[in-house]
């Protein structure tokens, strides 16, 4: 079965600093999803990457998938308190009956200090 390892497990940064979260897969990724989760809330979809070398950006968040499709990074520029939360990467795998099951990493908890 596919396993995803995220690093670091937790991160505390000062407001305005840049940071990077990594997600490494034990197998080649078919599709890689990044979600953000806050306590008591569901997962908020950030980005999906499918192609080796692909890079996507949304506001101050950039996600990349390496050429071999086994590692992804999420980079936040000039962090703000609103970026605080748990960031989860999820690997896509096709289910026997169709559909896409997501296998998630254990998450990276981000705190942004003023």
């Amino acid at each position, binding site marked *: 079965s596919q396993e995803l390892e995220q690093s670091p497990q937790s991160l505390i940064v000062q407001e305005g600093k840049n940071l990077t979260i990594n997600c490494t897969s034990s197998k080649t990724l078919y599709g890689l999803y990044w979600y953000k989760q806050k306590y008591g*809330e569901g997962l908020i979809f950030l980005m999906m990457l499918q192609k080796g070398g692909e890079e996507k950006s949304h506001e101050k968040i950039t996600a990349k998938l390496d050429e071999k499709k086994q590692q992804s990074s999420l980079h936040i520029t000039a962090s703000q308190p609103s970026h605080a939360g748990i960031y989860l990467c999820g690997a896509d795998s096709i289910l*026997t009956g169709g559909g896409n099951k*997501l296998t998630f990493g254990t998450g990276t908890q981000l705190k942004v200090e003023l």
Partner: protein
Amino acid sequence: GAGVSQTPSNKVTEKGKYVELRCDPISGHTALYWYRQSLGQGPEFLIYFQGTGAADDSGLPNDRFFAVRPEGSVSTLKIQRTERGDSAVYLCASSPDESYEQYFGPGTRLTVT
């Protein structure tokens, strides 16, 4: 528009009791997924519906767990003879089709005492 909703938001039950957790997907979404998230872990897949049928239930931990989606919209996750190890946040997600990103609800926090 309205997102995925789940009720109740919190459920406390005694060991051995039966519980039902409800999920209202985004209108028009044909694919529906249930996941379970334990403290400090990422969500784990339980079951997938395409329309009314359970297309894949390979993630259900045992036969105490069952889910239905009779009209292809609302889904109910049912847990019989609850155990303390069932305590977790149960998340529901829907997507327009099987190939699109999944939109998650806020979850139901189940505590079995």
